[in-house]
């Protein structure tokens, strides 16, 4: 008795490149420079040549009101920058740092055992990137935009991935 299951001929390629990543990598929603911004920083991964610049605008209360980026790199790094821009919206600096710490752990290990309950929602959104942990050389692609963002929050001009 044959059961009809939808066949995806790209099954073997999808563990890292889920639809979200392909889509965001191709058409990022936050992939532009902000006209008005309060902070900006560049990130550079000299090993692979990936480059990103991040712009941040704060709200009155110091929370992130808007984020934009310009990235040259692979689908992973662009998708990661785009999901980052979306998930940090409305967060203050320490919140954003905590989210980065959790994300970095997930990118390196595939799981996030220490993720605070309060981060469950954004981490859910970032979860499609967890597949990079299987590809140690690609982890930096996913974390580079975050390094640039944190550098912008810290008021430094440049970040390099680990």
């Amino acid at each position, binding site marked *: 008795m044959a059961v009809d299951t939808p066949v995806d001929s*790209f099954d*073997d*390629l999808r*563990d*890292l*490149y889920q639809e979200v990543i*392909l889509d965001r*990598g*191709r058409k990022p929603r936050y992939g532009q420079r902000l006209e008005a911004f309060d902070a900006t920083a560049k990130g550079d991964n000299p*090993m*692979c*040549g*990936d480059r990103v610049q991040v712009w941040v605008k704060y709200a009155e209360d110091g929370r992130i009101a808007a984020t934009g980026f310009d990235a*040259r*790199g*692979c*689908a*992973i790094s662009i998708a990661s920058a785009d999901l980052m821009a979306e998930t940090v919206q409305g967060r203050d600096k320490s919140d954003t740092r905590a989210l980065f710490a959790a994300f970095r752990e997930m990118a390196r290990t595939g799981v996030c055992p220490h993720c605070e309950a309060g981060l469950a929602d954004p981490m859910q959104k970032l979860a499609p990137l967890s597949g990079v942990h299987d*590809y140690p050389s*690609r982890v930096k*692609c996913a974390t580079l935009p975050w390094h640039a963002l944190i550098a912008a929050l810290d008021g430094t001009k440049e970040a390099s991935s680990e």
Partner: protein
Amino acid sequence: MSKPATFDVARIRQDFPILTQTVRGKPLVFLDSAASAQKPRVVIDAMRNAMETQYANIHRGLHWMSERTTEAYEAVRDAIAVLMNASDRHEIVLTQSVTGSLNLMAHSYGRGVLQPGQAVVISGMEHHSNIVPWQMLRDERGIELRVAPITDAGELDLAGFEALFADGKVGLVSITHMSNVLGSVTPAERIVQIAHAHGAKVLFDGSQAVVHRRIDVQALGCDFYAWTGHKLYGPTGIGVLWGRRELLERMPPFLGGGDMISSVSYEKSTWAEVPHKFEAGTPPILEGIGLKAAIDYVQSIGYDAIAEHERALVDRALAKLSAIEGVTIIGRAQDRGGVVSFTLDKAHAHDVATLLDRQGIAVRAGHHCAEPLMRRLNLDSTARASFGIYTTLEEIDVLADALTRVREFFK
């Protein structure tokens, strides 16, 4: 030397134990030999055997083990001399890699023979290891660094090259014999003619070239020739610098230490004869023994057969890959070796490499240690497939099919 007709890739593959491995559940398709080649059983055995039966330090022991090991190690010098058609085994300097050879040249020839105000010429398609040592020399010694232009096809622009000699300042040309990114083979004889006509010496970085064709330093007429063992099916940790004896003799030592001296006192030390003057410290003994086995192996197959096999691989790769929509071959030199770089319109080279890896295919992606060349080509990175004697035509087809899938996937 075996004839091309006897070249049997299936038999050759049996000599490389690693090729039976699977990657991510697929048979390994290893297309990254230009980064480092796999090792045949004879190399593995030679090194293991030396460790199990006769290992000792060399050139200094008076005991049986040391003498046997010294003989085995020194045999690599003879094998290299024959391989490159050097007339004198003393012209073969052993280093730790081609990077070591090029740094030796920049230090010893650059600081000891070249004079401030003179210039060194490299080309626009060098590996970082043939750029950075000369840059360091420039900044320290006021020796100018000139870069010969390349054409859009990825060939040396000979007119532009020759123009660099007009003021008579060029003392040395240090240039690739084959690009590790584009596969282009440079016109070595013409380079030597032009340089010599202007009184400059020529050093080739033959790291890629020596893998793909017979090198005859006397026929080339060059002055120095450097390469690295691990790309020629030998172990890591050993490199070669061949130089004309009278030039090596004029050069001061680079590193100081044991083995490179004739006598040492606190007031003054004197140097050993070439090549030992340049070989300070315990050398890469096991690596030398391994490289000797690798050279014997290559010689037993013969460069005629190797070159013919490779020609077929490159032709197939160029035909198959350029037929895939969205693929652009980077580098269209007429004379080329077994390296093919390409880009895909919808996907970054890193994504391409990862998705090929998912399908069991190893290629390299990135700037290939040639950032200035990438800039010249207006690219951040390329994917690169490179071939060895064990590469099959079927593997090229597997690559083409897999790449077609990647393109579909990214559509």
